[in-house]
């Protein structure tokens, strides 16, 4: 059982070809807003998102479309890997302040 699972996992790992350096995108949180609130990223590629929280209060980066969720403490940063994405729009929001903290990733 476990050997078969291991084999499957190996296949899954090999299915993703190695790529050159991962592009890094930086976003800031200020006054419960994402800056910039719209980020354009290359489609079909893994992206390293670095979220700097400049507020003293914690925030949670959340996106159903990107399938991501991560706490970013006040005055600190968080690294979140996203993608590869098909071309399209992927909204994200701050779960602790969802009315103001809204943003979108546009893959193209």
């Amino acid at each position, binding site marked *: *059982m476990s050997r078969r*699972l291991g084999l*499957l*996992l190996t296949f*899954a*790992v090999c*299915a*993703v070809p190695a790529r050159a350096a991962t592009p890094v995108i930086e976003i800031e949180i200020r006054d419960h807003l994402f800056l910039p609130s719209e980020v354009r990223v290359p489609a079909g590629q*893994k992206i*390293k998102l670095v979220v700097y929280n400049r507020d*003293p*209060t*914690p*925030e*949670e980066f959340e996106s*159903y*479309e990107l*399938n*991501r*969720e*991560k*706490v970013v*403490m*006040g005055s*600190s*940063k*968080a*690294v*979140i*890997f*996203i*993608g*590869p994405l*098909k071309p399209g729009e992927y909204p994200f929001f701050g*779960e*602790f*302040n*969802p*009315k103001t903290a809204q943003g979108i990733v546009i893959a193209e």
Partner: protein
Amino acid sequence: MLLTSVIFVLREVLEAALLLSLLLSLSKRLSIVSSWAFIAIVTGILGAAVYGFNIDIVSEWFEGVGQEVVNAALQMAIYVLLCIVAILAMRRHQDRPVSENVLAVVMAISVALAIVREGSEVMIYLSGFLQARDLLVPVLAGSAIGAGIGVSAGAVFYYSLLSLKRRAAVIVGGLLLSLVAAGMAAQVAQLLIQADWLPSQYPVWDSSWLVEENSVSGQLLYALIGYESTPTPLHLIVHLSSFVIIIFLAMAAGRSGTASLENAHA
């Protein structure tokens, strides 16, 4: 602000509440004293506070993906504990000697860990409003309402499970336990993909047109079966295989029981 905190806390509480109700009903069926649940809730909340207030340190670990790794470890531990629960519960169901204490301890640890995982986010959320005096009261009120709804949903779930007949309860309870456990394991994959410890891939499908993850049904399905509208191949493999593994373990425990009973009669 009030509504935001109701929804946020409800989301966090729901998963742990459903797991607790499921195990409590199981414990009642197997005539195990349910005091373990109280200890699990108290230690879970204490653990959530400790974890929540140290999350900035944890986040720094493993080049900034400490949160994902620790959460994945918590989820994995819960999955393994639920596999043990499935095996022991099956044995006890067949009236074979299984220590009541061992089962109670395993269930207690799994619930406590689930509360640590979900509760820590609530602690972090609330900590953000400690300085904001004008918002603190509505946020606390909203959180209490959200927690109340989550606990009520758990209670409804608990009594529905207890109302089932014995045979149906074994099948439905066992199936739900396996689904919840597999959902926990799937989150391990999800978290490690986010941390870039496991490869990221294109999703296999997008079922958000059918059930949106942020809808009420989406949230319930997430808490129950780990519903994910855009799963990647790896996520699916882990989800399905962990479901098969726990079912297999429970059935193997059941089968060996039947065999030994037959031997005893012979």
